[in-house]
């Protein structure tokens, strides 16, 4: 994964829980441009631990002067967002990966409908800038529990196509109304909680939308679970994965060579063959098909875990 050391040049609060971080190259050189929906992986050296979290870029894709991300503080999370909120200061140098896009706009679309839930607004902030430049019709629907939670409000353009649904003000998002009556050639993009993505998929299917017009992104933090042991087929080495550690992180800590990209079960880069498995793989990814998951011959180490007697992976 190619990356570079960037300097934090600005930190501001978007809401009580969400902070915006701006990164620039220490020499002031221009950074590679990207496309709307792209993300970067930020490395956080936290004592013994090296944390790596993926964040959507919220800045203008055609602005190379800096990258901006919005980070929501998760007090009960694994610690990455807490680290960003409490340990990172203006002037610090952090390692940031090159942008990668797993959630790009389908440029064949005649119209884009963007549906965001909560912090899921982030990829749409860069997509919006791209859409406005392309001059393609669009609608953005942004749902949040309260206006204090709606961190993206300040970053959204004041346009009639931007609809904000604040549920504690009684303005809930009506997916049926949004998805019915859209002109042919519309593509819909959803980012937010799993439940929102599932509701959009269900509503669209009920209204006869083909799957090719539906796009979604749900970055998963690796879920915690019971510790488990893994055997590395090439060396016979046995590795223990801690309760708040992912298998990928355990492999990295044990210097096992493994490629990765999104670290959230979406991109498929860290897919690993399972050579023997006595127990049950807890698949949490969006990459493997249902058949592959039930066959238990592949695992996505970034988010998936194991319960049972013994598992050996091909590494």
């Amino acid at each position, binding site marked *: 994964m190619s990356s570079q050391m960037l300097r934090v040049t600005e930190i501001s609060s978007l809401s009580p829980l969400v902070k915006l971080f701006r990164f620039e190259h220490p020499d002031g050189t221009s950074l590679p441009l990207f496309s709307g929906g792209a993300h970067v992986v930020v490395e956080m050296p936290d004592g013994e631990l090296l944390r790596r979290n993926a964040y959507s870029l919220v800045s203008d894709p055609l602005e190379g002067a800096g990258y901006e991300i919005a980070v929501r503080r998760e007090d009960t999370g694994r610690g990455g967002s807490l680290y960003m909120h409490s340990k990172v200061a203006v002037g610090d140098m952090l390692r940031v990966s090159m942008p990668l896009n797993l959630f790009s706009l389908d440029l*064949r*679309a*005649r119209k884009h409908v963007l549906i965001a839930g909560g912090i899921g607004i982030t990829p749409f902030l860069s997509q919006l800038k791209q859409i406005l430049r392309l001059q393609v019709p669009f609608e953005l629907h942004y749902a949040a529990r309260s206006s204090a939670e709606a961190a993206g409000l300040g970053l959204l353009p004041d346009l009639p196509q931007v609809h904000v649904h604040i549920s504690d003000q009684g303005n809930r998002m009506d997916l049926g109304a949004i*998805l*019915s*009556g*859209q*002109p*042919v*050639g*519309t593509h819909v993009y959803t980012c937010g909680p799993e439940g929102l993505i599932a509701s959009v998929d269900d509503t669209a299917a009920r*209204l*006869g*939308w*083909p*799957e*090719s*017009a539906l796009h979604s992104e749900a970055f998963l933090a690796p879920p915690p679970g019971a510790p488990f042991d893994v055997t590395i087929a090439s060396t016979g080495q046995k590795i223990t994965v801690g309760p708040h550690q992912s298998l990928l992180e355990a492999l990295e800590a044990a210097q096992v060579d493994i490629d990765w990209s999104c670290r959230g079960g979406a991109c498929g880069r860290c897919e690993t063959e399972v050579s023997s498995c006595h127990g049950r793989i807890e698949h949490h990814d969006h990459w493997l098909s249902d058949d592959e998951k039930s066959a238990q011959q592949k695992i996505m180490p970034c988010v998936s875990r194991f319960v049972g007697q013994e598992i050996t992976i091909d590494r």
Partner: protein
Amino acid sequence: MPRTEFSPSISSRPVYGALTSHGASPAIMLAEGPGAEALIELAGRDASVMDRAHVIFVPAGTGFGDTLRALNPKLYHEAPSMAAASERFTKALTDALMGTRLYLAGTEGLIGQASAQALAVGFPAGAIQSEHRGSIARLMQCVHCKGMTDNVTTDPFICSHCGLTLFVRDHFSRRLGAFQGVCVDAETPGIIPETQEIQP
């Protein structure tokens, strides 16, 4: 005339199935000649498919018009030719909402042209179904002069625009909705393979 079964070919060659009903979804149905029978059979399997269907039919000398009209589609229109139906079909496509299904039945030329037009206005490929009925004649584009020759039934054939002798390839352009014809004697001028009837 039953559904045509084509022999397997390269992956760019379109394949056609039998139309399957998506129930009473909004639908645009375009059929030419024997293609009417595909719509009649479709409605026979599920009558509700006509509830919100806009049927455009070019009889091309067949007498299926009355049977089609009796299936009671939401809108029924008969046109003397594809050219005459084109404006209505274009308007129906551009006014369509997401969730609208497109059913096409007829020759490869009709299916190819109508699909290309639908894709160009943003119709999702997953919402387009087609069933081949009738002649296996092809719409061919000359890759040299870009001219289109319709109703090609032999291989090779003479391009009706530039006069080159063209080999009938299975390679198909989704954008143009036509097969690609390539000069058959470019390297050996004048040596032309024997003309054969195109097979399914």
